[in-house]
């Protein structure tokens, strides 16, 4: 296993922040991120449509293995140098049910949580930047 593909909800601000954080961490595996509503996901991962309907975080390995929910969280931690040990601890049979409960609780309320934390999704941030950016300088306005 060399690459993990993380399919996340780009409409959830907290998920976008987690994606940024994951991308910045030193990792053992190459992490690639895909927005769940992107048409590229269905093309790249044939047969994933049914799993996309579950509205969960998905992680796909380059071997084609699919992890969802708390298992996907654990796999994201497994990819990181500093957190692989945590992934092993979290995957222990005595802790994994708690991880699942925490995941479900958070996942059901992720939009409200993002609003409460004032974390905007990537598209809204891009929209805001576009609104506040100055108009482009036209080349024909330059003085000769």
């Amino acid at each position, binding site marked *: *296993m*060399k*690459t993990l*593909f993380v399919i996340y909800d780009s409409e959830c601000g907290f998920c976008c922040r987690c994606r940024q954080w994951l991308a910045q961490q030193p990792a*053992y595996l*190459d992490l*690639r991120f895909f927005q769940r509503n992107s048409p590229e996901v269905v093309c*790249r*991962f*044939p*047969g*994933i449509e049914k*799993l996309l309907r579950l509205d969960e975080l998905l992680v*796909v*390995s*380059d*071997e*084609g*293995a*699919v*992890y*969802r929910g708390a*298992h996907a969280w*654990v*796999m994201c931690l*497994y990819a990181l140098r500093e957190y*692989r*040990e945590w*992934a*092993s601890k*979290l*995957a222990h049979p005595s802790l*994994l049910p708690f991880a699942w409960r925490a995941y479900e609780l958070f996942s059901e309320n992720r939009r409200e949580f993002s609003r409460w934390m004032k974390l905007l999704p990537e598209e809204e941030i891009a929209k805001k930047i576009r609104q506040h950016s100055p108009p482009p300088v036209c080349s024909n306005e330059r003085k000769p």
Partner: protein
Amino acid sequence: MITHTVWTYIGYLVISVALTIWVARTLHKNGRIFLVDSFLGNEKLADSVNHLLVVGFYLINIGYVTLALKYGDRPSDLQQVLETLSTKIGFVLLVLGVMHFFNLYVFSKMRRRALLRGQPPPVIPQAHLGQPVVAS
């Protein structure tokens, strides 16, 4: 004339430095196998790190021994010489012990990290796409 204090200092320096050398050599000899394992069999790198660790060990311990030389009572008879020497060497032994366990902690941490690198995924997949995914 050499006073009791000077004899104490000489004894302290000789015993402390000898103890430091003994612990450092033990660490150097027995720590190597840990390091070779931690660096996935890269013996050159393991030897280099081992040497650097021993240099750090010597610097800290001999630094402490020389700094602590003048602290303590000034003995005026043989009984006080032995008491002062014992106290001072006791402190050196404690410092050596702390440093030794710190080194063991570093070795074991490096080894654990190396083992983590080759660890298989901790959870089993819940589904399979039936074909590998091309990472382009």
